[in-house]
Each structure stands twice: as C-alpha cells, then as structure tokens.
C-alpha cells in the first residue's frame, strides 16, 4: 500500500462506521425514552429513584456484584429465566431509563436479580419507583396507588408505626408478621421489616391482597429466618450467605457491617444472626449506611410492572394469575 492518506481514511472510516452503527443510531432509536403512563397520566413507570438507591448502586458497582449477578430477564422463548421466577416478563430498554450506571451483567454465578425487589414478601415488595427510606419521595406509589403508598419503600430504616393488627397477613409467609421476635419489645416489631404495618396496609387495600395472597409467585422460605428477600433477609444473606444457603459460593460482605457492643438496648436494625455467625452476648451486628443503601437498592429492583412494549407471559406454566406477581395492578389498567 502506498501513501498515508488512503490508509488513514480507511482506518477512520471503518471506525466511524461502527461507531455510528452501534452507538449513534441506537441512541437515536432508544436513547430518549420516556416513562410510560396510562391515559390519565397516572401509573407512571418507571420513576426516578431515591438518593439511597443511587448510593446503593455505587456500592453495587464498587463491590463488583455485577460480575456474578445479571439484571436482565430474557424472553420466555429464549431462556428459562421466566420459568425460574426471575421475572414475569422479559426486560425492555424502558425498564432502565433512570439507572446510571446500568448493571445488565454478563455472568450468572448468582441468580438474576432484575426483580429481586418484587420477589420480597408481599408486604415489603416495593413498587418499582419507591426508593427506600424516602416514602414521601414516591408520590402516589407508582405501580399500585391503592396499595399502601407510604411505608413500603421504608424497607430499611424507618421504624414502622405500631402494628396494631398482628395481621394474619394473608400474605404468603408464615413467618412474616414478626420475623424479629426475639428481642424487640412487642409493638416496635421488626426493626428492619416494616412488615406488619405494611401488611395492614395491604390488608386495607382489597386490590392488593389477592395477588399477594394467591400470588406467591416467588419462593418463600420458612425455617426461622426472615422471609425470603425481605430487607432483613438481605442483610443476613450479605453478612453470611452460607448461613442461609449452604451451597452458596457468594462471598460474605462483613466489611459492610459493624459489630459493636449493645449500649442501652439492641438497635432496631441489628441483624438476626444464628449459629456461629451470631455475635457474642452483649454484642450486635448492625449494617453500615452503605449496607442499608445496598439493600435499599436491591429492594427497589423491580420490573414487574407491565410495559406496553412487552407482553407478559400469559401461559407461563407456573404463573398463577395472568398478571403474575405484578404487585397489584390496582388501577383498572388491564394486565397485559
């Protein structure tokens, strides 16, 4: 080859071709999506997330969760993701428009967690937009206005209002009403889980209960531990994964927790640890702020809201209700 100019132009041209083709045109096509809403302009999905969510995402990035966990559900014709209860529909670009960074992930040494927030026990399931700890920040609780707007997002921190109804939560988990019994005095139940309160709210909303009760599309485990995928469960799981699942090869993230002496009374958010992980008498293990943010982030991962772009899995074998698991499409919007 002679002459520098054709070489240079060719090198530049091939690169520009690929850059335009694989980044600029897609950006033009799906780079400016808006949330969807119904005709009245309510039921907006997705919604911007809270500050705790964003910080949680940074903790997620910093500790490399993405190298083992994906956050994308593949369509039912392509993969068993939906049969595995990782979601009730495939993920779509619109699900991620408020996320920065986006953690689609490329590896599943652990489960897909695109819907881990939706898989929490019904009382805690945060409707997609509800950022944790900022109940006020989730106006009219995005997905299910009827279903308890306020306390839901508070999965992590806000102490629940006194649980006046021990709520035989029609919900799924036998353990849910008071997962924290051991130490806490009665009404201040469940530091890390606002479950009773939320359950009340859920009860109050006739719309919500059927799904949460019958639904149980997500696994619910028992045996003395906090209900599966609740905030309390996440903390115990992050602290000591093998205390929950002996086969797990997830590393523990104890450096996100602080072991300290109990001062006056046991802290509200102390972890429920058993066996060899339990701190000695007079000590407790409490989550750091980063850990709380991380759990708030996880609890807010929820793509169960129907999207017009994507059909829900109607006939997926195990899905009990057509709109399986979507937290109570309270509005008359037809589940589709």
């Amino acid at each position, binding site marked *: 080859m002679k002459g520098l100019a054709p070489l240079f132009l060719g*090198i530049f041209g091939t690169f520009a071709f690929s850059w335009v083709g694989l980044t600029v045109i897609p950006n033009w096509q799906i780079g400016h999506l808006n949330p969807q809403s119904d005709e009245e302009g309510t039921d907006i999905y997705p919604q911007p997330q809270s500050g705790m969510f964003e910080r949680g995402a940074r903790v*997620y990035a*910093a500790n*490399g969760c993405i190298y083992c966990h994906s956050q994308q559900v593949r369509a039912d014709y392509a993969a068993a993701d939906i049969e595995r209860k990782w979601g009730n529909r495939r993920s779509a*670009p619109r699900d991620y428009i408020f996320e920065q960074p986006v953690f689609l992930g490329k590896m599943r040494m652990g489960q897909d967690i695109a819907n881990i927030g939706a898989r929490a026990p019904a009382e805690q399931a945060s409707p997609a937009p509800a950022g944790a700890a900022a109940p006020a920040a989730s106006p009219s609780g995005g997905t299910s206005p009827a279903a308890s707007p306020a306390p839901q997002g508070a999965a992590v921190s806000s102490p629940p209002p006194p649980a006046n109804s021990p709520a035989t939560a029609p919900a799924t988990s036998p353990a849910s009403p008071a997962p924290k019994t051991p130490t806490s005095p009665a009404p201040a139940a469940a530091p890390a889980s606002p479950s009773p309160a939320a359950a009340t709210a859920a009860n109050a909303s006739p719309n919500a209960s059927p799904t949460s009760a019958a639904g149980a599309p997500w696994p619910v485990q028992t045996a003395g531990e906090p209900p599966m995928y609740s905030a309390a469960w996440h903390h115990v799981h992050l602290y000591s*994964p093998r205390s929950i699942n002996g*086969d797990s090869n997830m590393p523990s993230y*104890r*450096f996100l927790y602080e072991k300290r002496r109990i001062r006056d009374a046991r802290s509200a958010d102390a972890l429920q640890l058993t066996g060899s992980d339990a701190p000695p008498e007079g000590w407790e293990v409490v989550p750091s702020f980063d850990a709380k943010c991380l759990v708030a982030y996880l609890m807010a991962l929820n793509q169960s809201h129907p999207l017009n772009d994507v059909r829900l899995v109607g006939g997926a074998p195990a899905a009990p209700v057509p709109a399986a698991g979507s937290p109570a499409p309270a509005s008359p919007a037809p589940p589709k």
Partner: protein
Amino acid sequence: MNATGIPLKEPEVSAVAGDTEQLERAYIDASTRVPVLMFYTSSIAWLILGTLLAGFVSWKLHSPDLLSDISFLTWGRVRPAHMNVMVYGWASMAGMGTAIWLMARLCRTVLRYPLLLVAGACFWNLGVLLGVGGILLGDSTGYQWLEFPGYAAIILFVAYTLVASWAVLMFRYRRGDQIYITQWYLLGAFLWFPWLYSAGQLMLFVVPVQGVLQSAVGWWYANNLLFLWFGAIALGTAYYMIPKVIGRPVYSYHLATIGFWSYALFSSWTGMQRLVDGPFPAWMITASIAATILTMIPVATVGLNHHMTMQGYFPLMRYSPTLRFTVFGAMSYTVFSVIGVLISLRSVARYVNFTQASIAYSHLGLYAFFTMVIFGSMYYIVPRLIGREWRYASLIKLHFWASAYGIGLMTLMLLAGGFLQGVDMQNPTLAFSESIETTLPYLRGRSLAGILLTASHFIFAYHFGLMLLGLGRTSTVPTFLNPVEAEASGGH
C-alpha cells in the same frame, strides 16, 4: 544447510543485506533501547501482579470465604483489578513496547523524541496504579474494562496521547514509500485506541447515554478494544515476525490487504452479540452476530497467508522461540475467532450466555492469541536491545509449554464448565444452585491451569530479569530451543 533446506542461521545475517543495512538496523535497535525496555519491564511487573490477582480470584470462586472480610480483597474488587491490570498494565504496555520497536524498524529511522515515550510510560504506569488502587478501594465504575475511575482514566489518556503523537511524528520521518503490512495494523491500533477510549469515556461518564445503551457502549468498547487494539497489534506483530524469522517474504500481499480491511470493517461491528436476548432492539444484536460471522473472512485470509508463508518451514518451530510463540498465537487467532462465531449464534448463545464460556472467550483472545504473540516478539526484540542472548533455552521451553498447556486447559475447562452451567441454567426443573455446583469441578480445574500459567510467568520474569542485569549469553547466535549444530552442522 541442513537436510530440510532450512536456513537455521540468524535470519538477519542470512538475509541478503549489505553490511551497511545491518549496521543501520543495529543503530535503530539501540535507539529504541530505553523506551522499549521501560515498557517491557513495567508490563512484566504488571503481568506478575495480575497473575497473582488472578490466582486469588480463581481460588476464591470455589473457596468464597478466603480473606473475604477485608474490603479491598473482596472478590468483586479483586476480579476487576485483575482484569484491568492485565488489560492496561500488561497487555497494553507490552503491546506498545513491541509496537514502538516495530515502528522504528519499519520506518527505518532511529527513534526520535525518546522523551515522549519515557514520559508516556511513566504516566501510563501511574494511571494503571491509581486505577487499580481506586478499584480496590471501591471506586470502580462498574463497566467492564472501563472500571478505572475518572482520575485514572485521564492520566491514561494523557500518557496515550504522548505515545500516539510520537507514532505520528515517526511516520513523518520514515524513509521509503512502501508501508509494510505491519504498519497498517499498527497505525490502525494507534489511531483506533484513542477514538475508542474517548468514545467510551464520553458516552458513559461525561454525557452518559440513557439506560441500556450504556451497556451497549460498554460492550462495543470492550470488544473493539480486544479486536482493534490488541488484535491489531498482535496481527501486525505476527506479520513481521513470521516472515522475518524464517527469512521469507509474506506469501501474498493481496491476501494481506483483503485481510486487513475486512478485519477493520467486520470486527469493529462485533460486541453486541455478547448481549444476545438482552433488552435491546433485535437488529443491534443481529448486526453483531452477522459481523462476527463475517470475521471469518479476515481469519481465513490472514490464516491462509501465514500458513502459506510458513509452508515448508514449520520444522523451524523446533528451534526458534519467537516462531514457536508467534505461530501458536497466530493459530489461536483462528481458534479464538471460530469459537467466537460458535458462541455468538443465537441457539448456542442461549446456553453459554451468562456462563464461564464468555471468560474462556476473553482469555482466548487476550492470552492465547495476543499474549503469546507478544511473548514471541519479546524473545526476538529483547536480545537486540540488550546485546545479549537469552541465557537458558530450557527456561524458554518451560515457559512455552506451561503457557500453552495452561491456557489450553483453562479454555477447555471454562468452555466445558460454562456450557454445562448453561444447560443446567436453561433447565428450570433444576435449582439454580445446581448450575453453580456443576461448574465447581471445572473451576478447580481452571485454578490448576492458573498454577501452570503462574509458573510460566514467573519463569519468564526471572529470565527477563537476568537479561536486564546483563546476564544473558554473549554470542552471535540466538538461543535456539534445541541444539541446531548437531543437525545442521553439515551446511555452513
């Protein structure tokens, strides 16, 4: 000449070259000495660090409690640290070292402005150091191969600008009209990298694109870095080393042209195939799958070209370390691409997506292909910089076999383990944890392969250290892997 008619002498001597030309070459080589050795020495230091990190990562995968209570040693931080040390510390620096030497040789002029390169090497090291430190302290950005936090990325970019501007200046001083094949690839690599890097940084961090497009940009960047930066350097190096060592011109110039342009055109469109069935418009993924299949064209032409050049000269691999490593790397390029095509087909990708198989793919590209070619070039270049020959043929052989078996075993383990993992994952009647259980034996096998690779890298670093200390052999004959005299003594 020996029975096979193969020139076993030092190829440069056997080349029809006047004394002046040889002197000129020696002069050029001497002028590259300081910058190239700087790049090489740093890269080998990073290689050792990256290897240790890799061992740690690999081990923790089946023994998750190992040192997991220390925040900066948690798996999710050590793994990106390992990847980035290897990508930016080892591979990029070693590749630049080789590219600089090749540039000087092929421009047929003494290296000018060495200070640009020295400063570039220093800044690059600083950038990698800060970046890896940042990752370990929890500043990772979370994008594959772009984990370095902003402060490190800026420094890397400055360092790169210094090196690239040197390359452009060198081109202006070049003698002769002809631009050899190697230079096409090197010029491409030197230009593609900054565009890629700045496009990635801009679209992810400065003016971030929305939602899933970030992942698209991330994978577009990562795959193009693999092909247009590392792949281009390695192919260019192979185009120089193979003909040089066997003392024979490249088989076909036209094939090389087709190979180069089809490579630039098609491989740059890959990347999205690694997101098969993800939340993207289907055309993006299909376009990348099609491009991946079309990369068979450059693979076929480049492979054919190298093969025809080597035709009849394969026995030389018994003797020349450079040739042995380079040919291994060039063949791995074919394997890497074929496997890339296989795992990108939708029906297969469904199984291997989200499994260890994609790690196998990266290692095939970055190690079996790129790193082996670069090892080969180092065996050729370092003696010419230092004026001594490699001390022990046995160490070179050990290095080669440990590397070859190590990477072979690792690839097999990860591919097999990944495929079985995917099959289990696609079977919803099995608990998810079963799919992980299935991979564990393979991950242990991978750790074993890692031990082999670790050994090979330590051997190489030791040998290189001896060379640096001036403890190489003083001889006019390069170090052959097997004694040549016995077989070839009849000839000359």
